[in-house]
């Protein structure tokens, strides 16, 4: 097992190097430079040239790339032009907020999705199955940013049950209840689509398993139907559900960008959008590399979990 994990980790290195090259090239190739973005209307060629020199952007691309990579290898991600603070501080702080949001949404959509899928499969074509299928289709079809805006209007502006935006109250204690009241709407809005997808796929995975012989055997030897579904069938179905969860984790992470903007959640997605618009090169590069590294790591974890459940997968 250790060998397998080590092999997967080593294979991640070229992937990450490739990502650094791609994100560096994209930031170098898109039109518009940080100096023009900072100076706005006052971006005369003379002012731009001087500011580029002050920002260290007058070196060749190859030089810039290797300086960046070398610094990063030593843990120095540089300083953000637009925020005037170390990239790594900003990214870690923001990623933390995203993890809280996306993590909650991921747990929500996994639990609700699998629950809905199993109930649907166990009652195939029954009223529960029909009701769940209807709700799930509705959930998949609503864009999350629209759902988020509607939630703000109903629950924050009209009913005043939840705060409109942000992660913490401006005044008052920063305790768990404050966090939960800020987290509820964005986490739900973010979880809805993924819940639907997971529910659909859990349903079909379960249906497939329920048709197999060992289920009939279990039923024949008198196992209670609840035990058949939850203990026997679900465990077997998890082998095909887990990779879906892995993919959905990626969707939740990228979907967080919209939700973070709508709810002003101080996460890494909103940070990247702002940074791209301001041409804050180092912050974009550092942020993308960091998020990509986390995603690669997460995928390795999913693969390992899958191989633990089904030893045939390990190679």
């Amino acid at each position, binding site marked *: 097992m250790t060998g397998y994990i080590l092999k997967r980790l080593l294979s991640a290195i070229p992937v990450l190097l490739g990502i650094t090259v791609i994100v560096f090239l994209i930031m170098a190739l898109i039109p518009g430079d940080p100096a*023009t973005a900072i100076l706005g209307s006052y971006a*005369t060629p003379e002012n731009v040239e001087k*500011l580029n020199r002050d920002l260290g952007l007058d070196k060749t691309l190859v030089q810039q790339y290797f300086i960046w990579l070398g610094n990063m290898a030593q843990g120095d991600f540089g300083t953000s032009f637009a925020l005037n603070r170390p990239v790594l501080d900003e990214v870690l*702080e923001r990623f933390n907020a995203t993890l809280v949001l996306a993590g909650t949404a991921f747990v929500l959509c996994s639990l609700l999705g699998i629950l809905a899928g199993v109930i649907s499969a166990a009652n195939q074509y029954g009223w529960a199955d029909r009701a769940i299928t209807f709700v799930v289709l509705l959930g998949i079809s609503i864009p999350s940013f629209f759902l988020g805006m509607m939630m703000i209007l109903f629950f924050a502006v*009209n009913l005043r049950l939840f705060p409109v935006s942000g992660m913490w109250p401006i005044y008052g204690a920063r305790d768990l209840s404050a966090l939960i009241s800020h987290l509820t709407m964005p986490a739900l809005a973010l979880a809805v689509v993924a819940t639907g997808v997971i529910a659909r796929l859990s349903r079909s995975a379960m249906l497939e398993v329920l048709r197999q012989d060992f289920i009939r055997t279990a039923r024949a030897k008198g196992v209670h139907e609840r035990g058949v579904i939850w203990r026997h069938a679900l465990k077997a179905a998890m082998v095909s559900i887990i990779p879906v969860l892995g993919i959905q984790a990626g969707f939740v992470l990228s979907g967080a960008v919209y939700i973070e903007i709508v709810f002003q959640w101080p996460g890494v997605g909103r940070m990247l959008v*702002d940074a791209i618009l301001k041409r804050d090169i180092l912050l974009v590069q550092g942020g993308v590399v960091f998020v990509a590294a986390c995603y690669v790591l997460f995928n390795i974890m999913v693969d390992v979990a899958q191989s633990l459940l089904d030893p045939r997968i390990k190679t």
Partner: protein
Amino acid sequence: MSHLPVIRRGLMAAGTALALALGGPTGALAQTPPGVLIVGQIAEPKALDPAAVTAVNDFRILMNLYDGLVRYKDGTLEVEPALATGWEISEDGTVYTFTLRKGVTFHDGSPFNAQAVKFNFDRMLDESHPFHDTGPFPLAFFFSAVDSVEAVDDLTVRFTLNAPYAPFLSNLAYPTGLIVSPAAVEQHGADFGRNPSGTGPFTFAEWRSNEAVVVEANAGYWDGAPELQAVVFRPITDANTRTAEMLAGGIDLMVEVPPVALSEFQGDQYEVHEQAGPHVWFLILNAKEGPFADKRLRQAANYAVNKTALVDEVLEGTAEVAAGPTPPAFAWAYNEDLEPYPYDPDKARALIAEAGAEGAELTFYVTEGGSGMLDPVAMGTAIQADLEAVGFDVKIETYEWNTFLGEVNPGLEGKADMAEMAWMTNDPDTLPFLALRTEAWPDKGGFNSGYYSNPKVDELLEAARVATDQAERARLYKEMQTIVQEDAPWVFVANWKQNAVTSDKVENFTLQPSFFLLLDDVVKN
């Protein structure tokens, strides 16, 4: 996101209908404490170091933490004393001697004096200054005319300029000229921007990244302590979320209200503030080649565009029709006699026929967004329709803002016939000097991307820049505006009115034509 304004508008309208159906606000979750004003800002500030930042968003905080030697008189763009109690200008306009206010201290307790003023300008302008590396200082060129700064005695400071430069005083009133505490810069170095110290009505208390900047009243402020206990600036980048926060009571004051959301704030619970600013929205016309090399066709474009409809329908009344290159907010320098080009499609068609340019093809650069650009895609589309109605054949090319600047600033030659543009400046000199002179063509480092050239205009602008008498400057600017309007190097479209909404708990708030946010007299009950 900004590229879906139409859909978002529809959604917002639908949401409003639903909100009304539900019967309006009930609970009281997000009440803000009395004496503490919560301001909804449009973005996270970059730094609280006035020399290092360029965005109006940051200026809104800075003007409450710092003072300059001079400032704009309430409700105008005219300069009055602040940290300097008075000044003398030499005959030739190159030496400015300021007398400083006695007994002022920075928030960190260090004294404000002539040495502190010298430190501020040397830090920005002198590359060998030990704290020049606390930059970069992107707007330092506002003071590029300054040759040397001298502390004559404790309360007298002398600026020597390399040439007469009339906008100097008004640049000193701009945030780039705000005075920071040298002791604090020495203590915090490059981190000064997160540990600011000035002489202003509020002192810095706390900056929670992406959440809030908190400032507290300076009880010993030389111009009278503020009424508020504290102000919290919250960055809320999404305009709809900002609107929702205002409706839910999470903020007391909101700046840059989207036009479509203004109708939400018509009730007694809110007050909507408006103030025209030194802003002009125009179309640069390529006067070097193509159809717009012909003055008649440039005038035809000015007649063809229905500016009133743009301002009322597209911008929902958040702007006024522009008459010429200088915004009316520069009251003393604005030529009151100018009338905007009337909307007259027949006259436009006649001019086009006279020039034999029926069906002329035009390439029109439109941006998706950007500072001061208002609603550029919708405006560009409406303008396209107006121009096609009089017989032009207009092709729009749309670019993201930074890309757009990269295309437009180097000049339109060989690429386009017209481009959208907007400027907001603090002195009537800046925009025409940088964008209308022959010496300001892009290849000479200026912003005259349409290659307009009129020797008389050049002469007037050069003379206005070195004149130190305001009445004489005003006369020169007014004459320049008449000529430029007639020559029509641009289509003059709109002057933006800045807006803000306050809740009924907030009193004594007014917007300034400078677009700065001054909160020292504001009361919150």
